[in-house]
């Protein structure tokens, strides 16, 4: 199927030389292990901030590779070819979002336990971190793709992308931190529910916005 072919191609490209995956993972690992250095080793302080820091770092790391989501294809003419294929723009958008998740979010998810260890979290906290990252990253890819498609032809697209995307991702960061907190405290606070709902809504709705952005930047 066309979508699978596209996702497969992007995974292959990422594994061959797309430095973006490595960059995103390295960025995440570095920042998340360095942050505890700047925080006083007061008991419980690190636990309180761990959730928010992990979520923010993973969002920023994913943003690093979002800039390139459509840019590389746009610049070498591949995007035109993808558009002249059998997929609708919305399906194309959804496939690219899925491809981004596989190439960036999945590696981030894989090293998120490292983040939990760096934050000195107990086992329950580790579960919370992995769960939060797993639930949040689809939204990050989906919403980030909206930003990527809107800034395709922008002069300094890389700088404006976080400005557009982070406000829209604020709920993800808030709820994700809530998920970590709920696992640490052992209390249910609904964060898992809210985060899942937001991610689901983002994944279902963003292809339409992304397609609109692509349409704009391709046809002008």
């Amino acid at each position: 199927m066309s979508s699978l072919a596209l996702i497969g191609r992007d995974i292959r490209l990422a594994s061959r030389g797309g430095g973006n995956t490595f960059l995103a993972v390295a960025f995440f690992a570095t920042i998340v292990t360095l942050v505890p250095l700047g925080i006083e080793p007061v008991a419980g302080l690190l636990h309180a901030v761990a959730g928010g820091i992990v979520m923010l770092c993973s969002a920023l790391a994913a943003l690093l590779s979002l800039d390139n989501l459509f840019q590389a294809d746009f610049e070498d003419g591949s995007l035109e070819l993808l558009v002249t294929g059998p997929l609708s723009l919305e399906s194309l958008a959804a496939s690219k979002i899925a491809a981004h998740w596989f190439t960036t979010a999945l590696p981030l998810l894989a090293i998120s336990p490292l983040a939990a260890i760096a934050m000195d979290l107990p086992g329950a906290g580790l579960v919370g971190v992995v769960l939060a990252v797993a639930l949040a990253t689809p939204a990050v890819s989906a919403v980030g793709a909206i930003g990527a498609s809107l800034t395709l032809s922008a002069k300094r697209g890389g700088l404006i992308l976080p400005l557009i995307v982070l406000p829209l991702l604020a709920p993800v960061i808030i709820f994700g931190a809530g998920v970590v907190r709920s696992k640490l405290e052992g209390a249910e606070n609904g964060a898992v529910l809210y985060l899942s709902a937001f991610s689901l809504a983002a994944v279902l709705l963003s292809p339409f916005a992304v397609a609109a952005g692509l349409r704009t930047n391709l046809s002008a």
Partner: protein
Amino acid sequence: MIGYANPKRFLDLTRPIPPWFFGVSSTLLAIGLYLALFVVPPERQQGDAVRIMFVHVPAAWIGMGAYALMAVCSIWALVNRHPLADIAAREAAPLGALFTGLALITGSLWGKPMWGTYWAWDARLTSFLLLFFLYLGYIAIWNVTEDETRAARGAAILAIVGAVNLPIIKFSVDWWNTLHQGESIFRSGGPVIATVFLWPLFIMLAAYTTLFAALWIVRVRTAILRRTVRTRVSAGFGR
């Protein structure tokens, strides 16, 4: 509406409006501020701090209203391709951002005496701050994208996507436990705020609204005139 598509007609029709609105706005501002500062009694719990409300609350309403206006113009721009719609949305944004910023600052000043803190990360304040950032992102797209048509459409999409924030701001005080007080005016049971506070509030709102409208129309007229000059100059060089 079709008539407004003709720039000259639009310019002619709207020429008398700004001075008139500025006049009305200054009058209302004068009345409202006088009432707020001298006539309104100190509130039971807050004392004189309550007077900030008359600057803060209308600013917040305009900040949100301007974004709603922007979103509606954006939908209109995408659906109808009306040439005025893009300009209308674009020129509303910096004004909306200004009023939002004013609301954030005055709210912060009000928060210190009322809650003991300049800021809190509760749902209402956070979502309102996000509104400010959404404005910035919207303005940034216009500035950074080279082709104007693409900038217009991209910005329109962002405005529509970001509009989900508006109901979140409105209902955040109901859905979550927030520091910010609950809805006291626009709620289903009718306002619970005392009438003596309500009137100056609405006068200030009317003042801000006419001020916004006047500034907005001036900006839109300027944009149209600028575009006319640019077209005439490039046509002239073509010869």
